[in-house]
């Protein structure tokens, strides 16, 4: 028999699979899962919800290109980034702009676990590590 921690992970993954529709996350299904957990209160509900939250957050991050920028990014630039990422990952990706003055100049685009670094701060950090 699997350990409680493993059972929590398995159940969370099962709920996550139930939340997908046509390969994408369905808000209606997520609501359904939450209602089910609320109603039936499985053992270790809190841990299950936390694990489920992580999986849903990771899935949302996979479908979103967070464009961090220092300065102004024109809407056309954001659209171009979204199109390029959609093309690269072969799934619909929307872009979200986020101002980050710590970058000094340039952009940093994050899609799920992948980070595309072209900011001055990133290059300085790489240079610092290489010296």
């Amino acid at each position, binding site marked *: 028999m699997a350990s409680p921690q493993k059972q929590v*992970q398995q159940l969370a*993954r099962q709920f996550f699979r139930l939340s997908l529709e046509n390969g994408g996350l369905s808000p209606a299904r997520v609501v359904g899962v939450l209602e089910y957990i609320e109603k039936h209160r499985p053992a270790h509900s809190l841990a299950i919800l936390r*694990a489920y939250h*992580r*999986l849903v957050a*990771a899935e949302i991050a996979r479908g979103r290109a967070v464009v961090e920028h220092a300065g102004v990014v024109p809407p056309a630039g954001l659209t171009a980034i979204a199109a390029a990422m959609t093309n690269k990952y072969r799934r619909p990706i929307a872009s979200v702009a986020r101002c980050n003055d710590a970058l000094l100049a*340039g*952009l940093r*685009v*994050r899609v*799920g*676990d*992948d*980070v*595309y*670094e*072209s900011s001055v701060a*990133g*290059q300085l950090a*790489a240079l610092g*590590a290489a010296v």
Partner: protein
Amino acid sequence: MSSVLEQIEQQIAKLSSKAVKKNTGNIRTIADGVAKIEGLSDVMYNEMVQFPGGAIGIALNLEDDEVGCVVLGDVSKLKEGDEVQTTGRLLSVPVGKALLGRTVDALGNPVDGRGPIAAQEFNPVEKIAPGIIVRRSVSQSLLTGIMAIDSMIPIGRGQRELIIGDRGTGKTTIAIDTIINQGRINKVGLASGDPNFRPVYSIYVAVGQKNSNIVRTIGALEAAGALEYTIIVAAPAADNPANQYLAPYSGAAMGEWFMQNGMDALIVYDDLSKHAVAYRQISLILKRPSGREAYPGDVFYLHSRLLERAARLEGRGSLTALPIIETLAGDVAAYIPTNVISITDGQIFLETDLFNQGIRPAVSVGLSVSRVGSAAQIKATKQVGGKLKGELAQFRELAAFAQFGSDLDARTKAQLDRGSRIVELFKQPQFNPLAIELQVAILFAMQKGYFDPIDVKKIVAASASMKEFFLGRKEALLAEVRTKAALDKDLEAKLQAACEEWKASSTG
């Protein structure tokens, strides 16, 4: 001209604005030198990952939604939520002759306070062992300088010979003696200018040892002049288990460099019991399923993939491995000892009882074996010591039997007498390896019965006097034995004459 400059500037601008892709994750939990990381979806098994603050880690557990990494370095500054990046590289350590004479940690960083190491090359820590085709059979001797071993349990270049025994039975001493002997042979060989001479470089990997012991070992090697041919890889008991787990592989990578570049190397893993314990600790923290004695299921593979890297290669060099295993109460049938016994090409078993009786090195003749056998011996040693192992084993059997009765026939008494003389003759002080030519001379004298008239209690002193005699007065004869490496009639006659001379001088 300005257009050329513009072109270069454009090229620079293009390159500098090129986005760099990184795969990242975040620390979910960190404890006992192991971090669980969320993300890192592209990470490979055994890949190096970069933690903030310069610490690095190795991805060991790839799970559905998290990655288990061992952290090599300071974990005290890491916290939950910190970003971790993949590097796309396997862990590598510096290799080459620049490391000789230096003490490094498991990552190849110098820890001896003697400045940075000017290594030109780096090799991956984990590497697949050489295959069947590229290997050659073991046929060149690697002399330990310990008479009991060189004459009865010979070790060849490229062999894996286990040194096993309880704590405090002289396991490390045998390994250190062997390294010291390589240093002495290297000095003589390199000074002779012989183009066919192949020096043996040594790597001593200390896993889970006390720092004081490592310092003592370094001191002994330095005093004997062997440190300049030796690399010390130190992962002491105070080091984190990840470093203790990695140190033998780092040492193997350094040894392989010599082998791949046509040189011979010797590597001592001191010891693999502590290595297995460090790996068990990591595995348990990573929540891997545990098996016998709580070791993970792949503990055999842990040692087999390490020891398989020792080999003699066709057209290249060799890497000889001397792994050390510590037993508890002489139990060689425990899990880790049986694993390593089955992997290696023989073992030198050291007995506590023999050690306490003053028989040092406390080599148990019955339980020790070299599966390479006499193929790794020079002809002279075979000629004078070919039957020794059988004689000594027979002596031990008879000695045990003789305890029950005093009425023994003359033949048995003679066998017991001869056996006890051989045992005394094999006694050797630590850090004092004997040159092979001297071993041959002493064994020759023993075979010809020169020690027979001497009282058993005085054999050690007589043997010391003979060594002194040969070293002081018969240097040319020893050199002839060394160069010929076989005893012909002429050499036998010379040895016999020398023994007669020694006999006359010692009795007169």
